[in-house]
């Protein structure tokens, strides 16, 4: 019986909404849900942009810095394979690793100078750890020095440079540039010797993040060690874990096991402030735009209220025929909910259009300033969880907003409407 009543309530709500005296899908009905449609569309587009921003930034950071970096504070050389095997034994979530050298230097080319970060990577071991191959936009991912013909002078070691550096110094594949590294005297660190190394551009990288592109240079581990004159020493290891989200757990575990002498940082820590700011921004933006949706839901409620007044004779008749006050209330609440669902779904469609428009404007006019937002291109990401939250919250608000008109309909006396005609 309960199911039969529910079925009948849905039928009545649908029929009255579409064809009945309430005729909510008239111009008035459409106007009432316009606000809802635009509110939901804005919410969908904003969430897609923010989530895309998060994902783009995260991918960029992980591609460049890996899941987890371990810096050796002790300069004593330690065979890296042994060190890596020890780490794997300590935590089985560690999947792959490569040693690296990180040196700050100065790039000098055609009279211009710029501070850079030179990373030396093992050309063979880096593949499974960092995804730099897919970030090449010019040239090739090739860090192996080319063998010079016998008697010919040795070729400069290859290096990959960020696209910002390429633009600023007008460097292209095949061009050579010089890197200067200051090396302190062992007895007096205030007096520096200069080590100058010449490198050849093997490729240009789009690292996805403005400050990386402006400063990052990647070369082979051997070339970096030779240039910085640090022998076979390395700065530390970059590790890949089973899941990027587990990196922090692995970091905590290994830090406890390794003790002092090592500094560990996961990909999140590299940009902790920025990532946290975006997390907060996402929540704030959601609530700010959701206020529009709440206002729009009250617009739906007001349209429904007018309709209840207009439909008094029909409501009275239905009550005369045996529709109980509770079911009248349910029928009108269902109408609000149906309008809400309709507005939300149309809002989703419009939101997708907004997203398409954003993608178009971004690719055509470069909407995003890398110097301001850290990244210059956002890959929009539509998460089903975002949509579910938007759908549920919007329709909950619509349901609540229609309570007043539905309650008024329920309280109408059957006689009241019968006298109106």
């Amino acid at each position, binding site marked *: *019986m309960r199911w039969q009543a529910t079925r009948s309530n849905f039928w009545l709500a649908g029929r009255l909404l579409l064809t009945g005296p309430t005729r909510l899908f008239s111009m008035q009905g459409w106007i009432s849900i316009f606000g809802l449609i635009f509110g939901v569309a804005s919410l969908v587009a904003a969430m897609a942009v923010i989530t895309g921003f998060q994902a783009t930034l995260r991918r960029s950071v992980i591609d460049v810095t890996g899941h987890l970096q371990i810096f050796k504070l002790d300069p004593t050389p330690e065979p890296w394979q042994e060190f890596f095997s020890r780490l794997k034994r300590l935590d089985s979530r560690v999947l792959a690793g490569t040693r690296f050298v990180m040196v700050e230097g100065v790039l000098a080319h055609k009279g211009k100078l710029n501070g850079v970060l030179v990373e030396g990577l093992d050309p063979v071991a880096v593949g499974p750890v960092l995804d730099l191959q897919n970030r090449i936009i010019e040239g090739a991912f090739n860090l192996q020095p080319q063998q010079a013909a016998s008697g010919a002078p040795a070729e400069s070691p290859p290096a990959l440079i960020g696209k910002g550096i390429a633009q600023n110094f007008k460097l292209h594949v095949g061009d050579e540039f010089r890197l200067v590294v200051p090396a302190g005297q062992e007895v007096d660190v205030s007096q520096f010797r200069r080590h100058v190394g010449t490198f050849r551009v093997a490729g240009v990288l789009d690292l996805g993040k403005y400050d990386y592109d402006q400063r990052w240079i990647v070369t082979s581990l051997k070339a970096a060690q030779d240039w910085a004159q640090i022998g076979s020493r390395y700065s530390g290891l970059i590790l890949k874990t089973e899941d990027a989200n587990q990196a922090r757990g692995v970091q905590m575990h290994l830090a406890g096991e390794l003790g002092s002498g090592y500094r560990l940082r996961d990909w999140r820590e590299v940009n902790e402030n920025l990532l946290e700011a975006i997390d907060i921004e996402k929540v704030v933006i959601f609530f700010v735009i959701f206020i529009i949706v709440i206002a729009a839901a009250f617009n739906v409620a007001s349209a429904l209220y007018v309709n209840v007044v207009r439909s008094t004779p029909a409501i009275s*008749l239905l009550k005369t025929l045996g529709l109980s006050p509770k079911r009248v209330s349910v029928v009108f609440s269902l109408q609000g909910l149906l309008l809400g669902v309709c507005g939300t779904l149309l809002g989703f469609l419009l939101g997708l259009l907004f997203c398409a428009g954003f993608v178009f404007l971004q690719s055509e006019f470069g909407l995003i300033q890398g110097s301001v937002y850290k990244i210059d291109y956002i890959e929009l990401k539509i998460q089903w969880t975002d949509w579910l939250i938007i759908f549920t919250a919007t329709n909950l608000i619509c349901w609540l907003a229609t309570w007043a008109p539905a309650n008024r309909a329920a309280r109408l006396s059957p006689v009241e409407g019968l006298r109106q005609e």
Partner: protein
Amino acid sequence: MENIRQETRPALLQAKGICKSYALGASELQILKDISIEVFPGETLCIVGASGSGKSTLLHILGTLDRAQHGVIGFAGQDLGALSDEELARFRNQKMGFVFQSHHLLSEFSALENVAMPLRIAGLSAAESLRQAQEYLALVGLADRATHFPNQLSGGELQRVAIARALVNRPQILFADEPTGNLDSKNSLIIQDLFFQLQSQTGLTLVVVTHDAQFASRFSRVLRLSDGSWSNSAS
């Protein structure tokens, strides 16, 4: 007065000491003053009276569409005053039928859907509701107008659809408030005949409010209401 009959069989509908008034600013307008009535199964009862005498209000109270300030209403031994609004709605749907002066059909629903409405409210499936509604449309002679909408039907046809709707749930009692009030004499006669034909076929109890003397003369019992009380001049 025959409002309380000396009958041995139990009354189907019983009202005792019904009082109804409306507040008009500081004063109070008394519509019904201590009205009592018994309606017996299968009888045809007509309530007549001048405009404003309280006929319609009494019909609404007897039909549970309105509540009295004082008094008791019983139906087949059940105290209707004790029922909640939800229970009353279900009760109306199962036991009572209503026809009004205006047809009160939903304009965006076809004749067949209008007749099927009480069945849909009762929870019957669409197919079963429409099947039964079609039978009752045929009963009032409008089988061929099932798909027509109210604006495509004449005044007499609209009232016949309303009668079919009132009967489709097989009520025990049918209340009609000036059912011929909006009709010309020809259509009025058709509707009157239909009422009595259906009453004799189904044996349902008929309570009609009218000021049409000719129509009133066809009922087995006529009660006159005057200024909210039963008048001594019985018809």
